[in-house]
């Protein structure tokens, strides 16, 4: 089950963070997403050093926490997408597809002429689209 989805700007500032659990303790997701930025940086610098996968946006499993698994994705404009899930056995293809759809949603939200680039995303349409993407997670590959 997806418990949290986050979009982080290129200055590592949160642009959007939504948790999908009933528990109103979203603070831990803030911590998890913030710490995952370290892993994203490591991965990006490692792949740069190795000179491979420069065009790969999907970063795979970033790290597990004691309860969750954290996956990452970075667009070529350095916008990071982070997924926190409780599932232990996820197919890479599903996660990739999820991120692709999330990225698409972000691009549409950022293309809104009323959106100021770099500002937190407050669009309700974006939130709705994200929750749709989350709901259909796992079926997305087939859809």
């Amino acid at each position, binding site marked *: 089950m997806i418990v949290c989805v986050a979009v982080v700007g290129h200055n590592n*500032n949160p642009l959007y963070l939504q948790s999908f659990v009933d528990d*109103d303790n979203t603070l831990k997701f803030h911590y998890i997403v*913030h710490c995952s930025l370290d892993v994203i940086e490591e991965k990006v610098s490692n792949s740069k050093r190795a000179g491979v996968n420069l065009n790969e946006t999907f970063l795979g*499993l970033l790290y597990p926490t004691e309860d969750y698994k954290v996956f990452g994705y970075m667009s070529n404009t350095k916008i990071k997408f982070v997924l926190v899930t409780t599932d232990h056995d996820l197919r890479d293809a599903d996660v990739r597809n999820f991120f692709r759809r999330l990225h698409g949603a972000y691009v549409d939200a950022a293309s809104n002429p009323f959106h100021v680039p*770099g500002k937190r995303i407050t669009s309700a349409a974006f939130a709705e689209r994200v929750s749709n993407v989350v709901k259909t997670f796992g079926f997305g590959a087939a859809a």
Partner: protein
Amino acid sequence: MAEDMEELRTPPVPLVALVGCPEYHGAISLYLHREQPPLNTLALPDFAKLPIIGGKERKPVDARMPPPLGILKADWLTKHRTRMPAVLAVLLDRDQVYGDPTQWLEVCTNLDNIKAVIRGRNIKLVVAIVQPTSQGEVNEERLSALRKRAEVDAKCCILFITHEPSELRRSLARLGSIMGELATTFYREEGRRVKLRVEKKSYSSLELSVRYNFKIAVYAEFRRDWVAALKFYETAYSLLQEVITSTSMELQPVQRVVEMKAVAEQLHFKISNLLLHGGKETEAVRWFREHASWYKQMVGPFEGYFLHWAWISKQFQVFGELLQNRLATVAPPAQNTAMRGQPVVSERELQPAYYYHVSAIYMVKRRRAFQAALVAFEAFEESNAPDVLVGPPEEVGPPVYVGQAPRLLKRGNDNHAQSPTETEYMRHLILLEKNFQHPLIAIALLKKAHELYQLVEATRTAYRLLNDMGCEYFAAKDYVNAMRILNSVIGIYRQEEWVVLLGSTLTYLRECARCLGLAKEFAEYSFELLSLPLSATVSPGYVSGSEVEPFGELEKTQLCQELVEFLRGVRDITSQEGKPGMKLSSAQPINLEINVQSPLRMVLSVCVAFHNQSVRVGKVTRLTLSILTHLPLPVVFDEVEILFDQSSCNFSTQKNNFVEVDQEDLGPCSMLGLELEPLKWKRISIDVAPEETGKLECLELVARWGPHTTIRCQVESMGTREEIPFWKSEPGIDVPPSGDPALASLGQKLIQVEEPEALVDISVEASSPGLVGEAFPVCFTISSAGHSIQSGDLEVYFAPSVNSEATLASMSPPRGPDLAPAELLVRKTGENAESIGDNYEIFAGLVEVPEISIGDSWSTIIYVRWFEPKAVTLMTTFVYRASEAGMPKYQYRLHKSKELDCVEALAIEHHYVAPFRRDSLLLGNLDANTIGGQVPAATLALKESSILVVTLKNQSSISLRLLKIEATEEDRSRCLLQKSGSGPLANDPDGEAGGIIVAPQEIFTQLLWVHPLVLSKSLLVGTISVLWQRTMSSDVMPNISEVPIQHHKDAVDFVSNRVPLAKIMVESPPLVITLDCPPHAVLGKPFTMTTKVQNLTSTLLEVAFSVVDTASFIFSGAHSDTVSILPRGTHFLSYKLVPLFSGIQQLPRVKINSAWYNAAFQPSPVSTQIFVFPSTRFEPNTHSSVDEAFGSLVIS
């Protein structure tokens, strides 16, 4: 790591025992220990100690047996590592074996005893006959009897030579190898035996399966068969999971849950250790992940929650340590070496820091669960019930099975009866846990993880650990450390704009400040927390739980009210328990500073803009302030002050009123205080009248609440307002102050305060351009236009001119670049004014200006004298004091500048010319002619009068009056100078009509005679001085009449230019040739032309001559000849000529050649021309000039 894990950490080493001949035990033990693989030795000094290696009789396993009371025996492994040998070596002295029957009998008895002891254990036996040397008789019969008795084959019965070093080594090797071999056999057989039991399934209990598989694995480890060991440990582990899943954990008693987890821990520890030592780090990590996630759900009953979290925490910690130890010796493994289908291991999971961190998180959970359990315990349990599990060793014995509680020995002999009850057990554990320092352990773990994360530069994770550490310090009530650590964390959250994380940290910091009674910090943290752009509730701390209240909209409002009341001094804030509450007083005031970079800028940010860019002293200007707060509630300040760098301008709501108040919603504004609405700019305007010149800057706004709270907020210019450096990505946070767009974009907090306007005009007039050398008058006129000047000073000076270029040729000597191109002069006054010479003196730079009443004017003239033709800028500063009605006496200052151009007036040139038709042979000229090809102009004949032509060209655009040209000889005895004729120049320069006017670009020529008297190579002739004056007449330059200065006769100066004449070379000529000819001729009338050749030498000179014929004349005389001229003599060459044509005609030219000097002379064609009149009616006596003669001819 827990001590009980120590024996699990290292792989078990086979154990052998020695008995008999104790003197050799040390050497043998040492040798066996160094064997590869090593063997541990249990040395029994004599045969009486044998029973300690014997065990109890083994019973066959029966399916009807009740399930065992525990899974793993607590001391089984210890027993096999330290007490249960695989091989027993009996050392028998040679004398005993081959000795007399009594000794032999003793040997036999001992062997029988040994056999009895080891029979049930399958311990291997080795018999060694100890003898000093290899020599000696062997009683074969006795030896075979010994083997038979001991029931060993021949290879297990060896000789042990002690006193021959090489033999001793060989004996030791033999003993070692046979014992190693037998030990392996022993452990293999034991393993096989247990395995057989497992395969037969002759029992029904799963627990026994776990135990047997564990035993097989341990035996395999004894054999160093790691693969088999790992396999059986894994089997045991999965069987244990079956045991656990067969019952519901929640329904199990705590003791049972604890036991099963202890066994699982032990098995897992072994597996991890084997995997890690086998170099399978990722495998180990994967195994651990499975282990942790499987057992995490096995929480057990509620009262034992804290035990569960303690266990989980320990799993992570122990695995972290194992991994760290492993990684200390080998390089970290490459990531994702996973086989296909296996879950990916992330890089974090291969870092020990991760495990320490998670361990710390569970440690916190353990603390929280324990706190809950303690509450329940204290509510339901008797407070003074004794802990029966704490007592002397004779009452409380160690547990028989791994993970079980200590036994109460007094309660009977049965293991079941000796177990404590569930209540006793829980009481024991809770009392133990009470003394456990959870926060300190958690902090230690977090510190460890923090250090490791810092090594891999995981900054944010490291900060998060610091944050967790701070929260733990808070939980441990160590507020000072908590505050110190949390303060170091908030920076990154501010920087990266993680508002929720910052909010969470700030709630802790605020609580710390409250508990420590730090009022200022409390206010700062509260303000920052309140002004955060939090869009949702900040839930309680993630790690530390609910020590801090959640922070939502409701709390915001409450907190804001509480804070304002506290700052007003009407409310106390409860501090730590047992300490008095925080209260503001004059001894403990709060003074908050908010600068541009402060995070508190969200609380109060002030922009100011002056309406003007500059203001005169004493005049009123308007200042508009825009004030914004992000606090959630409307704020009313009791008093507001606005401070300037000129303290006289300071504004206070207690004393002054706002001129204009404008808020977006036009809310009420108290007259004394200031009310601010959240997120709405409030604009107020005040009037300011500066009293000092220079600048006036608005510095800060001081807002007061009550008597003890001051907030000083640095102000910004509205036009150059910087964005709030925080929360840039938050929409709608940084709204620029709207209002007047001009003010918003250009308004500054700084204004120039200018001096009051001077009501005086100053004019500088001059008829540019000036001429080099003259005293050029510049007229300064000061006229009062409103101020009555009481005393003033006029300062005049040169400013360095930008376009100063000396392109014009200058006759003045070149001056250094640092010297001014001109000087300022004033006309001398008093008696000296009439004296001859320079009428000017150097200007001191300052002129005192007398009193000038309103409407009057005063003027003065200052002269500029240029040294070179360069433009200069004349600067004037007029400082005066004047009183204006109603204004204090003030010093005014006025500046004026004028650029003055300058040109050279006259270009004076001169050159020397020989007299008409009289030429001297100058050898210097000849030499130069032959050498350089140019005749030096300045070689003159001795005692011959040469002509000096001086030309003056007016270079300026002004007509000049030339008054006098004078030649001054350098030395009358060497060279004479004489002016040719009286000329048009008057002798008296002061005469009204004296001199001649030279118009611009006109050339004036003056002739002079030069008569050198001595021979010289370089003779100074003298100087020419030219006296001139610029013309004053208005007809020359009509516009000059507009300049009043030109009407001053005195103002126009005479200038004398002195030019040294070029040096000449004086030679004595050997020959002088003079052409003598009438000035004109008449057509057909003969006349005589004589060429006179004078020999000035004292020798005879031979001169050849020839005449170039012309068609205009017929003449008589020799055409060519050579004549000798006597010393000092003169030869005349006379020709009679009859002109044939009228008009200007060329005379026949006589060419003279001196062979002696190798010089030839031919007069120039110009000098040998003559005018031939056509008729004789021309009367030279009646006509003074040729032109007149022509005129008369025409008339006639």
